[in-house]
């Protein structure tokens, strides 16, 4: 696969520290999203500063997918993390504002994860 944009792989537990460093350097949280890839979920974090975009990717196994929240350094991450939780079923530890799975009202539970089941 050709990667045409810089994406730095990080360990899931590293992200809060990475995010704190990005915040201290003046980067804005642009987005967080998840992608189902084989047996894993890839969580992509994008930070923007002016024209620049810096991406980090944490990979977690689908089974019991869980990683730490970055709502400490970036409170606005709560929306992205709740969205990922509701669509993919990924849990975020230390989520500052946790909707407990009720941010999005979907007909099936975790519709973007494999084997979505009726809620």
């Amino acid at each position: 696969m050709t990667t045409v944009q810089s994406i730095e792989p990080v360990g899931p537990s590293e992200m809060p520290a990475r995010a704190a460093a990005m915040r201290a350097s003046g980067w804005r949280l642009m987005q967080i999203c998840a992608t189902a890839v084989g047996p894993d979920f890839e969580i992509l974090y994008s930070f923007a500063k002016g024209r620049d975009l810096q991406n980090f990717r944490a990979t977690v196994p689908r089974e019991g997918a869980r990683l730490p929240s970055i709502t400490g350094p970036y409170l606005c991450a709560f929306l992205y993390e709740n969205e990922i939780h509701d669509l993919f079923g990924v849990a975020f530890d230390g989520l500052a504002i946790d909707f407990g799975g009720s941010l999005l009202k979907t007909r099936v539970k975790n519709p973007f994860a494999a084997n979505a089941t009726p809620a």
Partner: protein
Amino acid sequence: MSAPTQTKPRTIVPFGPQHPVLPEPIHLDLVLEDEKVVDAIPTIGFVHRGLEKLCEKHDFHKMTQVAERVCGICSFMHGMGYCQAIETVMGIEVPARALFLRTFWAELSRVHSHLLWLGLIADAFGFESLFMHSWRVREKILDIIEETSGGRVIFGSCKIGGIRRDVADDILRRIRRELDPIETEFRDIASVFDQDPTAKRRLRGLGALSREDAHALGAVGPTARGSGIDFDARKLGYAAYPQLEFEPVVETAGDCQARCSVRIREIHQSFDLLRQAIDKMPAGAIEVPVKGNPNGEYMSRLEQPRGEVGYYVKGDGKKNLGRFRVRTPTFANIPALIHMLKGCEFADVPVIVLTIDPCISCAER
């Protein structure tokens, strides 16, 4: 002995999902002390459509039509952003004329979206004739869009590798002449938003958002630029913008009036960009053939009327993408909205909510 701490009783008032100022459903639990809002808890997802998931069913060409249907206001730019992401992954060089016509339609979209918002905000603060005048001018922009693209809501003009239809040069020259009287009409309306005491009273000093908070909360578009953040994704250099002269419109007050002023000045800026795009319109092809399937990933960004939007695409050489993700500006501006609401009067909530120009259709893609 110190007196016991007096705490005011708190009331939770539900705002939405159905509300006169909200054409689309979003819900806020407003925590009030008397008439003052001390907290706001948002709930979205009432009409979540899961459009992103369709990339696994439709081939990557057809996903252009799906992307356009994310929103009925900035539909063209959704298609354009998606195409840009795929074109970057596949290394497709789009012809210059197609890039200029994309810019032309994108700026028409910005003008009609901002005019739509001006009408809605006028209606929200009780100035109904101003609402009707704003939409009267918007109608003329929609007529141009219909004449050049064939649609008023969904343009269907963007495709991977270029655009689907050309616009004849004589039509473009005539449209350029028509822009002057339309802008003159708009100028009269804009002066009411800027100078009318009623409008000022309902907008000035309301829903303040500092530059630091806007940055920390990830605000984008007029919401961020109204707080002094000098960022406009058009400066990233996509489409024909590198060949056009403009500077981001920035206000510093950070209140509802500032966000309104940014949009008014951006309409004038868009008229100028439209004239520049028509004057510099190159001749030549409008599309190139697309061979193969996308194999790679990319996060494309562009500036919609409501702010920066991101399109992430990931393909592995098959005709279907593995992931299509849209980060819309409304989604990014919700944390800033919650911050703005804290401390405001209950009666001002509808106006403040409207000043981020919420598009729930985008947020519920």
